């Protein structure tokens, strides 16, 4: 009965909501084309007078975009690669191997999801600064800058992810033991079993986890801000864009910031649109834990 009537009220609601969601993005794109004196003036106009690319050029000039993108790409790749690898390895051990302390380790993994990141913010910085034998530090972590002056610093605190391990484990549990057993009888070692059987079978979940991790890592702001403050050479794209706020000519600041933002979210947006079914499944899965 509910399904038979045309759901006009639902349509109205959903479409209104969708418009509210999309309009800010359109406003961002429109503003990125606006000329000097066209933005922030009264009365408000949605469309720019002309679609010229000078703000994009200014954003690229003002920022060292190749360096920013390099840092973001390297950090994101390190994080995504490491999370996939460690989650799959640990997930396999927790799902399919028997060993003393398994329950404890599993509980530890679950508990890591409970700790809020801000609690680790200060100590993580401290640990990276005093990382032994790096960046001029001695064995006791004194004397130098530690890891704070390397791109690695952007990635270090995010290399392992409790949720990723949990997700992989849940999926691996459903792989039939007989398949693994057969391989073992054929003489395959655990590493081979993992690489030849488990990894291919969990590929879709790996894509999902990879995408979730990629998006989070690419968009990370606060930690990157701190590390970039210590060493501007490792600045990431979001941090760099935020710095555009201080662009000298105030009549053009906003359009240029918007142009930078459009450039910065494009890679993630494209990836998301291409692989969204994996991403969306990942979020749905996270709700089932």
């Amino acid at each position, binding site marked *: 009965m509910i399904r038979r009537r045309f759901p006009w009220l639902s349509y109205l609601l959903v479409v209104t909501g969708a418009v509210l969601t999309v309009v800010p993005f359109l406003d961002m794109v429109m503003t990125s084309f606006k000329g000097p004196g066209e933005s922030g003036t009264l009365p408000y106009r949605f469309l720019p007078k002309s679609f010229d690319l000078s703000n994009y050029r200014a954003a690229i000039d003002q920022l060292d975009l190749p360096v920013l993108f390099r840092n973001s790409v390297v950090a994101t790749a390190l994080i995504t690669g490491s999370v996939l690898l460690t989650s799959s390895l640990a997930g396999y051990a927790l799902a399919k191997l028997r060993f003393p302390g398994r329950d404890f380790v599993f509980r530890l993994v679950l508990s890591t999801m409970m700790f809020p990141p801000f609690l680790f913010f200060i100590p993580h910085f401290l640990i990276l600064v005093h990382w032994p034998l790096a960046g001029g530090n001695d064995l006791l972590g004194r004397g130098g800058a530690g890891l704070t002056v390397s791109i690695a610093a952007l990635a270090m605190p995010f290399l392992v992810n409790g949720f990723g391990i949990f997700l992989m484990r849940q999926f691996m549990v459903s792989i039939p033991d007989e398949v693994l057993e057969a391989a073992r009888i054929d003489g395959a070692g655990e590493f081979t079993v993992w690489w030849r059987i488990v990894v291919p079978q969990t590929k879709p979940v790996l894509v999902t986890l990879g995408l979730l991790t990629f998006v989070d890592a690419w968009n990370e702001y606060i930690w990157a801000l701190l590390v970039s403050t210590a*060493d*501007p050479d490792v600045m990431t794209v979001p941090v760099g864009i935020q710095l555009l706020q201080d662009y000298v000519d105030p009549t053009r600041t906003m359009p240029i910031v918007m142009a930078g933002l459009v450039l910065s979210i494009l890679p993630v947006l494209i990836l998301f649109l291409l692989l969204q079914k994996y991403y969306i499944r990942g979020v749905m899965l996270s709700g089932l834990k």
Partner: protein
Amino acid sequence: MTPPRRGTAAGGLSRRHFALTLPSALLASGCAAPHQGTGRPGDPVVLTLLSHYASGELKEALQGPVDEWNATHDRVKVRTKAVEFTDLLTTFMVRQAAGQGADIIHPYCLWNGQLVRAGVLRPAPAEHAEEIRRGYGKAAVGAASVGGNVYGYPTEVQTYALYYNRRLLRGAGIGSPPRTWRELEEAAHRTTRRDRYGNTLVQGFGLSTYDDSTTVGQTLALLNAAGGTFVSADGRSTAIDSPAGRAVFDLEHRLVTRGASAPGVNVYKAFPSGQVAMVISAGWWTGSLQPLMGKDYGDVGVAPVPVPEAGDRHATLSTGFMLGVNTASEHPREAWEFLHWLNTEKVSAKKGTTATRMSALQVSVGSLTGRADDMRTLLGKGGDPNLHPFLDALAYAVPEPNVPGAQRAKSLLRKNIEALWTGQQSVDEALRTTRRQVDQEVSRSW
């Protein structure tokens, strides 16, 4: 030589230490060495200088003398690094924590107490301290000192005065800038205009929540003009809840509630586009207003901060920066040598006069230093007449307090001023809360 020489012995130690850790530094992908200048014999010492001269003409103005030094000195080279002012304190603290502190830093004097207590700043060696006391005005030396010790060469000194837009004042039938608070209020109300939606088109007096200097700077300038101070004479508590403090808060409260001020507007944008009739700001602004406004800059005038009653003694706020040497620097002697060269050595300026490189640099960007003689020489002929009121104010300005925690105190003051302007707090509450908060959070360390 009084400065401790950390020449051969210490240098050799750190060199060996560096060689030992180099491989692991390379291992940690892309790890840059914290200190430039490898310390190998024959290689020049490289000093880093961290300031907020990050963009535009300020950056170029500083780069000029630095390039000159590098061209004429083989043994010691200087490399500049810069961040925006809003990030400067955080950058000092974070880089210091990361062992990345620059050899020479250019702090806002407000932070000197905090930086000294945290052990970031090194006291000036005796002969430099003496030179500084001799060469600079009292407000500048005071700002560069903590607990009686001088910590650096004062550079940019800012005093606050009243900017006004002649065209807007004339349009409201006002011929000369206000001299008393009564005149200020009257002029503010007469110049205010708004559209039918309630959007402010012109605000009479630009009270702006945009940043520290537009909130606290203005308020403290008015407070000093009323004979008050933010920190009490004994330096152990705040004196904001004095009659002078109350008078300033009252004045600002009236301006906002009666619509002559719209604190939400960014005055740095609004004044140049003719949307603000009057605003209190520092001298550096002349330098950025000129290119921004072009021909319209002719409308801009500057007058001393109005005083409560006709005949009251002039006073205003002075703020400033200084160049100091990092405690963690491995080459303090070279750093002080460079600072001496930059700040006290007189070179020929225009028309046979002489001034220090720093004075020439500051004046070239429309700013001032605490060297009154240089300022008179450099501003004497031609130049922007709007700078003279700021120069005159050097004689009577009160330096911003630089006790430890001063930045925190300033933030607390700013929050309460903003709460006052936006109607969250009454004048009484704002005074009381400021007092209570500053005493709890900051004065513990005073």
